[in-house]
C-alpha cells in the first residue's frame, strides 16, 4: 500500500495521465509540420515536461515522512458535533471512524492514540481499545432514565422497592409504577432538578413471573416512556414451628392461633407441672419433645420459647439448641418478660438499655402498641427488625441460624382492638427475619444488567456442587469458568436469541432454573447509554489528554509543494511561447 500511495490524489492518476497524453498528442499533431527541424524535438520535450508538471499539480505526489500526528477520532452514539469540529480544526486531516457495535475498528492500525467521542463503546467492545492511549471526551447529556434498579426476585407478600434516577425531569410529569396489568400502584411527580432520584414501592398481589412497568406520563396523562420491570415473585413455604412455654399466656395463645390459622405446622408445649406437659399439635405436627437434642430440633424452622424456659434450659439442651442454630439454621425467638432484660451477657445474646418508654406507635392509621421500657443496645452483631422505621425487635446471627427477641409486650391487645392486620404485620416482620431459610444448592446472579438480543449476557453461578452443567432452554450447554480463588463461583456467557423471559437451567438439577429478562432494542435505551458512559469513564478515565506520549515511529505522507511544478510549467510554457518569436 505504501508504494501505491505516493500520490495523494491517487484516484485521479490514470485519467489525468490519459488527458496529459492526449494533450501531448494534440501538441505533436500541431507541430507535425516542423518534424524535419531540430526545434521540433526540443519543443516536444518542453511540452512533455510542461504537461507532466501539470499532471503533477493535479495528482499531488508526496513523500513518506516520519510523523507524530497519528491521532484518530472514534465517534460513538451521542457525540457532540461541535466537539468534533473543534477537534478537526486543531488536528487537520485527522482520521475519523464511526463505531458500530461489535465490529472491529479499522482506524486502530493507522493511529497510535484516539479521541473517543460520544457515550463510548459497548462494554463488551471496550477491550478493542485497551492498548491505545484514549482521551474519552464524553457525549451529549443523557435524558431520561439513567438508573433503574429493583429486586429481580422478591418473596410474595413483600414490597417491591424500585429506585430510579431520571436525568432532566420535566415538571408536571409523573413517574408511575404500574403492575403487569397496567394498574398504577405508586407515583411520584417530577421536580425541577438536574437529576431526580425516585423511589417507588408496591406489594405484588400474586406470585409468579411478571413484568411491571415504570411509566413516565406528562400532565395530560399521555405515556412518555414505558420501561419494563421484570420481577419474579416467589411464594414461600409454610414453617415448622416449635413453641415452648412454662405457663400459658395470652401472648402465646394469640401467636399460636395466628400461626396455626396461617397454615403453619405448630407444635406447642406448655408445662403443666414438673415433668408434665400439654402438647398441642397443629397442621400435622407430631412427636412430643421433652429435652432438646440437635436431632429433634433440626427439623424445625423456628423455636419460640419464653424467657423462663430459655433461662431454665439445661446445659445440654442449650448446647443442642445452639448446635441446631449453627449447623441447621434454626431460628430462635425468645418471648420476653421482665427478667429477659436483666439477664447477664453470659446468658443472653442481647443487651438492653432502659428507655422508660412503654408505648410505641406504628402503622397508618397510627396504632399504639405496648412495649417494655427497654431498648436494644447497639452491637455489631445485633440486627434491627424495623416496622415503619421503628425498631420493634432484633436478632443476632449464629452462623446459619438467628436468635431474636422483641421489646413489644401484649401485642394480642391489637387483635382485641380489631387491628388483626397490624398484629399480622408485626409478627410477620419479626418471624420472617429470624426463621430458618430453605437452603438452595445453587444461586444465580446476572452480571450484565440489561441483557439484549445477540449481546453477551454474563451470569454467575454459586454452588457447592461439583461439575455442574448449565444449559439453555434449547438444551445447548454453556461452558463455565471457575473462579480461581473461590471454587464455588462460576461464570458463564450466553447470547440470548429472543427478547422477554429466557431461562438457564442446570442440566443435572432440574429444580434450579434461572430466569432473566432480555430487553428489546427500544427498551432501556437511556440506561444502556448511561451504563456505557459509566463503563467508559471507568475504563478510560475522564481526562481529556493522553496518558502516554504517542510513539513517534509512525510515518506519514507529506505532499511535495506544488510551487516547483508551477515553476517548471511556467518555464517551459514560456519557452514554447518565446521560441517562435525568437525564430522570427
Amino acid at each position: 500500500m505504501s508504494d501505491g500511495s505516493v500520490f495523494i490524489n491517487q484516484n485521479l492518476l490514470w485519467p489525468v495521465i490519459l488527458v496529459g497524453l492526449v494533450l501531448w498528442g494534440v501538441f505533436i499533431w500541431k507541430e507535425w509540420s516542423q518534424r524535419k527541424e531540430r526545434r521540433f524535438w526540443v519543443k516536444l520535450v518542453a511540452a512533455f515536461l510542461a504537461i507532466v508538471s501539470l499532471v503533477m499539480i493535479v495528482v499531488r505526489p508526496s513523500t513518506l515522512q516520519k510523523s507524530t500526528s497519528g491521532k484518530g477520532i472514534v465517534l460513538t452514539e451521542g457525540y457532540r458535533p461541535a466537539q468534533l469540529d473543534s477537534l478537526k480544526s486543531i488536528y487537520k486531516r485527522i482520521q475519523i471512524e464511526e463505531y458500530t457495535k461489535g465490529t472491529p475498528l479499522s482506524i486502530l492500525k493507522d493511529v497510535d492514540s484516539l479521541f473517543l467521542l460520544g457515550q463510548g463503546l459497548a462494554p463488551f467492545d471496550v477491550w478493542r481499545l485497551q492498548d491505545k492511549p484514549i482521551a474519552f471526551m464524553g457525549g451529549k447529556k443523557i435524558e431520561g432514565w439513567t438508573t433503574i434498579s429493583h429486586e429481580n426476585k422478591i418473596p410474595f407478600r413483600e414490597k417491591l422497592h424500585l429506585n430510579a434516577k431520571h436525568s432532566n425531569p420535566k415538571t408536571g410529569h409523573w413517574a408511575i409504577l404500574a403492575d403487569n396489568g397496567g394498574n398504577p400502584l405508586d407515583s411520584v411527580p417530577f421536580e425541577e432538578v438536574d437529576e431526580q432520584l425516585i423511589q417507588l414501592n408496591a406489594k405484588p398481589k400474586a406470585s409468579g413471573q411478571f413484568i411491571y412497568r415504570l411509566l413516565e406520563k406528562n400532565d395530560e396523562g399521555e405515556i412518555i416512556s414505558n420501561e419494563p420491570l421484570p420481577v419474579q415473585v416467589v411464594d414461600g413455604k409454610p414453617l415448622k414451628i416449635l413453641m415452648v412455654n412454662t405457663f400459658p399466656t395470652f401472648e402465646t395463645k394469640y401467636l399460636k392461633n395466628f400461626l396455626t390459622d396461617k397454615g403453619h405446622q405448630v407444635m406447642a408445649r406448655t408445662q403443666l407441672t414438673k415433668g408434665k406437659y400439654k402438647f398441642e399439635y397443629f397442621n400435622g405436627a407430631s412427636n412430643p419433645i421433652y429435652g432438646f437434642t440437635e436431632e429433634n430440633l433440626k427439623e424445625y424452622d423456628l423455636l419460640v420459647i419464653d424467657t423462663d424456659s430459655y433461662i431454665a434450659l439445661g446445659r445440654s439442651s442449650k448446647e443442642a439448641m445452639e448446635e441446631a442454630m449453627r449447623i441447621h439454621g434454626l431460628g430462635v425467638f425468645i418471648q420476653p418478660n421482665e427478667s429477659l432484660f436483666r439477664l447477664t451477657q453470659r446468658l443472653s445474646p442481647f443487651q438492653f438499655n432502659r428507655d422508660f418508654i412503654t408505648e410505641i406507635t406504628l402503622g397508618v392509621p397510627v396504632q399504639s402498641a405496648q412495649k417494655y421500657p427497654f431498648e436494644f443496645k447497639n452491637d455489631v452483631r445485633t440486627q434491627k427488625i424495623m416496622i415503619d422505621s421503628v425498631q420493634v425487635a432484633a436478632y443476632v446471627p449464629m452462623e446459619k441460624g438467628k436468635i431474636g427477641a422483641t421489646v413489644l409486650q401484649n401485642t394480642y391487645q391489637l387483635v382485641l382492638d380489631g387491628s388483626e392486620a397490624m398484629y399480622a404485620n408485626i409478627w410477620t416482620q419479626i418471624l420472617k427475619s429470624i426463621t430458618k431459610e430453605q437452603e438452595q444448592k445453587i444461586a444465580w446472579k446476572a452480571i450484565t444488567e440489561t441483557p439484549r438480543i445477540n449481546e453477551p449476557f454474563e451470569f454467575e453461578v454459586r454452588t457447592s456442587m461439583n461439575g455442574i452443567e448449565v444449559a439453555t432452554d434449547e438444551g445447548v450447554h454453556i461452558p463455565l469458568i471457575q473462579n480461581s480463588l473461590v471454587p464455588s463461583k462460576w461464570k458463564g456467557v450466553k447470547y440470548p436469541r429472543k427478547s422477554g423471559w429466557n431461562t438457564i437451567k442446570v442440566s443435572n438439577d432440574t429444580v434450579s432454573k434461572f430466569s432473566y429478562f432480555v430487553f428489546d432494542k427500544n427498551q432501556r435505551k437511556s440506561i444502556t447509554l448511561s451504563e456505557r458512559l459509566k463503563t467508559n469513564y471507568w475504563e478510560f478515565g475522564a481526562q481529556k489528554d493522553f496518558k502516554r506520549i504517542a510513539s513517534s515511529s509512525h510515518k506519514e505522507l507529506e505532499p511535495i509543494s506544488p510551487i516547483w511544478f508551477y515553476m517548471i510549467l511556467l518555464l517551459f510554457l514560456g519557452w514554447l511561447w518565446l521560441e517562435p518569436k525568437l525564430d522570427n
Partner: protein
Amino acid sequence: MGAGAIKQFQKRWQQSKYLEGLLYAVGFGGFLYLSTHNIFYGILGLLVALGIAFWFLKPWKISSENAVGYIDAHVPQAGFSSGLLLSTGNELSDLSKLQQYRVASQLEPVLSKLRPPHNLFKATLAMFGLILIGLAGSFMLTKFGNPSGGNSSNTEQITFAPKDSLSTTVETPQLIETNIAIQYPSYTRKGTSNTTNPNIKAVEGSRIIWNLEFDGDVKEVEMDLMGERIGFTKTQESYRLTKTLEASGFYSFTFKDLDGNDYVSDLYSLEMVTDEPPMVQIEGLDNYTYFEFDDDKRLMLMTNISDDFGIDDAYIIATVSKGSGESVKFREETVRFDRAIPKGNKRIQLQQPLDLDALKMDPGDELYFYVEALDQKTPTPNIARSETYFAVIRDTITDEFTVEGNLGVDLMPDYFRSQRQLIIDTEKLIADRPNISEKDFKFRSNELGFDQKQLRLKYGQFMGDETEMQAAPGQVSSTENEGDDDDHAGEEGEEDLLDGYSHKHDSENEHNLVEEHDHESEAQEEEEDPLHNYVHNHSDPEASTLFEKSLKAKLRDALSIMWDAELHLRLYEPEKSLPYQYDALKIIQDIKNSARIYVHRIGFDPPPIKEENRLSGDIEDIENYNKKEEFEYQMSFASTREAIALLELLTQDEKQFNNEDSALFVAAGNELAQKAISDPFTYLKVLQGLRDLEKVANRTKENYKEVQKNLLEVLPEAEDNPMKKAGYQDEINLLYLKELTIYE
C-alpha cells in the same frame, strides 16, 4: 308573439324560484330526518321549510313587469322597450308599434335563451350541506350518543357463543326473540315492564319472567345464577323461566344444541333494589316540651312522611310515665291521626293535636311519643319511626327522696355533693340569663345564695358553729325551695313525717364513716346538739374532735369561701360567685378524700404459708395432655392470584390453554362472585372477563391482558404471613458469620 316569450320567461323565472325553495326544503327535511331517524319529522320539516322558503322567495309575485324590467336591464337588444311587447297593438302610437315590432324580432331568439336570475346553485349547496350535517350528526349520535333516554332498553341483547370450538358445518341455533318481563310487586303500582336488556334492576320481590325463543333446535336451556342451575320450561316455541327476585347477583344462560354442544351467554347482572322504609319527620317541635301545671297542655304535632312506593299507615305511639324511681309506671297508647291516612301516597303531611290532659297526665308525668309509619311492602311491611319527643308537665312539688339509685356503697352524705350541684345550677343560670327576665334572674340568683348558705350551715355543724345552726332550720321553708332541686330540703320538718317510714338505704352504710353521721338522727334530734356523741367538749367548738387539725382548718377555709360565694349570689353576680364555689368544691373534695382513707385502710392479710409446703402436692395423677388440630389454611383469593400468574404465562405464549386452566378461572370467578354480591357492578366486568375465557373465541392475548388488569384492580393485597424463604448460604458468608460468633 313577443308577449308570449316574455310570459314564458316570467314562467321560467317563477319555476326557478319554486325549485330553489324546494331545494332548501329538501335539504332541511333531509337534515331533520337524518338526525332524528324519523320520517315523520323529515316530512314535517320539509313542508315547514317549503312554506318558509316560498314565503320568503314569493315566486308567484314575479309579474310580467318584473320580467320586462329584468329583460330591459340585461338584454341590450331590448332597448328598454320590451314592455311594449306586452301592450296590445291598438294602444300604441305608430312609433311605438315600430319599436314593438323591432324589439320583438330582435328579442325573439335572445329571449328563449335568456336565463332568469336565480340562486339555484346556492340552494343546491345548502341542500347538500344540510344533508351532510344531518349525516354527520346521526353518525355522531350513534357513535357517542346513545344516552340512557329513548331506546336504552334495547342496547344490550343476549348473545350466545359456543363454549368449545365447533366445526364450521355445525349450524348454531340462534336466539331470535328475547323478552324479559319484570312484574313489580303489586303495591308498587308499577305494573309489568318488558325489556330485552338482560341486565336487570328491579325492586325486591319482583317476579322476573325470561322468555327465550330459538330458531334452531335446542335441547335444554338453563340459567346459571351464581352457580345455581335453573332449568327453563318449554312452552310451545319458547323457553320460559320465572323467578322472584330475592338477592342481587349475576346470571348467564347456557343451552345445548341437539349435537350436545354447549353454548354460553355473557354474564348479566341482577340487581335488587330494596324497598326503602318510609321517612318520618316531626316538624316544629322541640325534643323537650315543658308545661306548667296551669298551662294549656296541648301539643301540635306536624308530621311529614314519605316513602318510595307508598305509605300504608301511620300512627303515634305515646308513652306516659308516671312517678319516678322504683315506682315509675309506664302506659303506652296508640293515638290515631284524626285524618284518615290515604293509602299508597308517596308523601303525606299530617297534623295532630296531642292533648296531655286527654292522656290523663298529671303534674310530674312525662310523655314520650313518636310517629310510626308503615309502607305497603308485602309480605312484611317496612316500619320506620321518627325520633322520640318528650313532653313534661312540671311537678308542683319536688319529691325529695335521696336514695342513690345504683351505688351500693355511698361513701359520703349528700350535702358534700351539693356544692357541685350549686356550681352546675349557677352555670345554668348564667347561661340562661339572656333568656329570662330580670326578676326571674334575680330571684334564682337569690335562691342559689340561699342554698349556698344552707350548705355552709351544714358544714358549720361539723365545725360546731352553734349559732349558725340555730338560724338554719328557721329560714328554710318548702315554698322557697320550690322549683329548684335542692338536696337540703330533706332536712326540713316536712320530711320528718316520712322518715319514720321510709327506709333510706344509703344511710345504712354511713356507719363506715367515722366522722360522719346520718341525716336522720340529725333531723330527729334537732333540738339536741347533733355532735354530742362525737364531741368531747361541747362548749368549745374549736376543741371538737370531729376532724383532725388540718381538716378543720380546711373546712374553716371552705366556710369562709362559701361566705363569699353566697355574697355574690345575693348581689346577683353569679359570675363572680363561681370561682369561690369552685374553690370551696376543691377543698371539700380534699376533705372527702382524706376521709376516705379510713375505708381503704381495711384490707385482707392472708396468713403466711409455710415455705416448705409450697409446690409439694402430689402430681402423680397428672398426665400429659395431648391435643391435635388441623386448620385448612387458604390464602384469600388464592385461585384468583394463581389465575393472574397463569394469565401472565398465557399472554407470553409460555403455555397453552387447557382444561385445568379453565377450572382455575372458574374457581377464581367463584371466589370473586362471593365478594361481588355486595357490589355487583364493580365486579361485573371482571367476572364477565373470566367467564369469557371459557369461550374459545375469546382466548386472545388482548383478552388475557384485559382480564388480568381487571383482576389486579379488584384484588386486595395478600395478608401478612411469615413464610420460609429460599436462600443460598455462601461459604464465604458462612465463614464471616462464624468469625462473628464469639457468643459465650
